[in-house]
């Protein structure tokens, strides 16, 4: 009996190592940097870290649900482009609160449109969703370019009140930035949604096994609409946080967010096969990626090699994920 128990512990340690191999590797990198590069633990650097958390984590949280539901969404880059340029221009036209609401609504609508395209075609695989959302991303980006005539819009061009966005971008409550508080609030909400609601459960079941879920009466079509709409909405939030921080919105502002978000979700340990995953894991994934690039920056690694590192980690993470099954 104790032999079995021991074997069980050994196995769970092995399981743990396998599940968190990436975490361990990146943690080693962080600890190494902290030792050899004292600047890493300086106050400025840590505040800088917190600021980087903003837009990517929003997008990655939305992406978590899409991947947990067994699909994928490449359109977030396009949605960010569109929401950013439209929202910033709307501040001038309708005022800041309606602009914020409309911006989020556009994000959600784009996501809902994605799900409509996917559902109407009867696509069931991740591959089909990948190509369709890529095409949709191109469409949204083109709309952003058309809307903005390809030009970058700046805060200083707006002569109406934009205090709300300035607060999102740079405001602080005590030492904590407002965008970080927004993140915490959204994380809490999404975590509740994921773990406490029937819809959150339905998404997990759909991602785990669509056929089995449908045969016990889960509305898998509704789940697909929900995950894409949510992902679009969160991309909209990400867009707003992003342009509020940098105080400008270019129609190409979202480029690369889709791969970074997928990377964060997968590195966090949400499986690409759908089903198991969590927004908390994604937070960890984003944290790891930000820490990694921060470390690599401090160590003087070129930003291009950092892209290489991200690509390599993505490939490695998918390979690991596949080995686990």
């Amino acid at each position: 009996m104790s032999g079995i128990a021991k074997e069980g512990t050994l196995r769970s340690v092995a399981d743990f190592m396998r599940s968190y191999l990436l975490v361990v590797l990146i943690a080693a990198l962080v600890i190494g940097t902290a030792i050899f590069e004292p600047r890493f633990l300086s106050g400025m650097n840590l505040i800088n870290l917190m600021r980087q958390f903003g837009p990517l984590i929003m997008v990655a949280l939305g992406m978590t649900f899409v991947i947990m539901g067994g699909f994928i969404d490449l359109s977030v880059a396009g949605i960010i482009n569109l929401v950013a340029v439209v929202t910033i221009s709307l501040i001038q036209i309708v005022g800041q609160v309606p602009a914020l609401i409309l911006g989020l609504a556009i994000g959600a609508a784009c996501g809902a449109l994605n799900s409509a395209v996917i559902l109407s075609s009867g696509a069931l695989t991740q591959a089909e969703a990948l190509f369709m959302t890529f095409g949709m991303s191109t469409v949204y980006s083109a709309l952003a370019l058309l809307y903005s005539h390809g030009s970058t819009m700046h805060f200083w061009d707006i002569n109406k009140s934009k205090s709300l966005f300035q607060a999102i971008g740079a405001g602080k409550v005590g030492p904590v930035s407002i965008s970080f508080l927004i993140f915490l609030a959204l994380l809490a909400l999404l975590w509740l949604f994921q773990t406490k609601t029937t819809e959150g459960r339905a998404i997990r079941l759909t991602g785990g096994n669509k056929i089995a879920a449908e045969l016990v009466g889960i509305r898998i079509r509704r789940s697909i609409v929900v995950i894409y709409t949510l992902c679009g909405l969160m991309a909209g939030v990400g867009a707003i946080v992003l342009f509020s921080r940098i105080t400008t919105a270019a129609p190409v502002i979202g480029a690369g967010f889709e791969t970074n978000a997928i990377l964060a979700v997968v590195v966090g340990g949400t499986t690409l096969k759908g089903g198991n995953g969590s927004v908390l894991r994604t937070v960890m994934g984003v944290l790891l990626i930000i820490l990694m690039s921060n470390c690599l920056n401090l160590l003087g690694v070129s930003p291009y090699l950092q892209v290489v590192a991200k690509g390599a980690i993505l490939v490695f993470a998918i390979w690991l994920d596949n080995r686990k099954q």
Partner: protein
Amino acid sequence: MSASSDSELIISIRDVSKTFPGVRALDKVSIDVRKGSVHGIVGENGAGKSTLMKILSGVYQKDSGTIVFDGEQIEGTTPQQSMKRGLAIIYQELNLVSTMSVGENIFLGRFKEMKGMRGSHAKARELLDSIDCKVDTHKLVSQLSVSLKQMVEIAKALSFKSKLIIMDEPSSSLTAEEMAELTKIIRQLREQGISIIYISHKLDEIFEFCDTVTVMRDGHAIDTRPTLEFTRNDMITKMVGRAIENEYPPRPAKVGGTLMEVRSITTRKLKDVSFTLREGEILGFVGLVGAGRTEIVRAVFGADKARGHSVFIGGKRVPIRNPRDAKRAGFGLIPEDRKLQGLILPFSVETNISMASMDNFSRFGFIRRSLEKGIGERQVKALSVKTPSVRVPVGNLSGGNQQKCIVGRWLEIAPKIFIMDEPTKGIDVGAKYEIYLLMKRIAEDGGAIILISSELPEVLNMSNRVLTIFEGRITGEFDPAVTAVDRIMASALGMKEVPA
């Protein structure tokens, strides 16, 4: 056993055994096939025929025993080596690439040997002509009828200069004319000195052209004799006959009035299927694999689209467009394929059990964990599921315990009509009995069960009433308690004259 010397035998199977987890599929099977003969193998579903054939072709490896093919002992072979050796199998699920042409399929993987496309097509033409098949070799296989596909398979077998061709239930989807054609070809092949092992359910065919017959049952070769020494009844008795009294609990006793009526389901595979189900009843569906049993229940449950079908419960028409509607109307389903359709293997036992009854433990769209936690524990206890905890992934459990989780999932919402498609597939004997007791309890609590099983004794012993299904239609209705097994069997095999 036949007394023929070894040189007269094309294949000699000696004491071959094979065990799968929980199931002894073959138990010391010995069969000899003489050169140039047609050797029939008959037996129910699950008798071990297909396993035996897969061992011969090299898809599975045997656990013990010897196989001598054409004077040469065979060990650790692969399908491809068997082919080259001259042993070809024509499977039930045909082994052709449907997106490629007839000619290319015959010489799949041998493009170079055949000197390219033109050579392949020319040689294919020759082979097809030799069996009087006129099909164009450039046609795509996906455009062919099942019988033509079989001809292509036969031509493929001939292309390897096969000495032995095994046909695994070739007739299951052939029309009478197509069957006549196949019969002709089988005779022709025999005249060319090619031996044939012919696996079938259909006794007519066996008696028409088999020289020798082996009856298999429960992984044993029960009897091998020249066909002429068998009578039809004899053979059926040997196929099904056994003392099985203690394997099953008594049938549910109280059967009430009509609970559900299904009117005229029609799909691509089903033709105007109508039936009724009574309260407290276990209704068995008997038929060959692929006869349309699963298709019927899937259509009733709303999992497949069907034309013009209507379900009446308690005399009222209930619209069922999807499984969700079915669940609301009081149905529960144990699907045919536990792993693909039933469970989410990496998820916990608890989640798998609670997934059908989310409405019971949620309010305003929120899950109440305290209520859900009870569900897993309750069903695990009630059904005595053997699991270290409700948190372990359901994929870690044995087949029987996995199946109990699916049963428990539905018991939680107490469906009135329980559809069970192969509920005991791949489950060991002890767990089977527990599932039977569960079924009885469900029926006695006022529910009704539709039971589909490929194990004939199981359906016959559990059901109050059985419907026989053949080629997408219901061919008969019997009370298994008072009807001779062979009559039911005959009806399920689509035989017009039912033996007395």
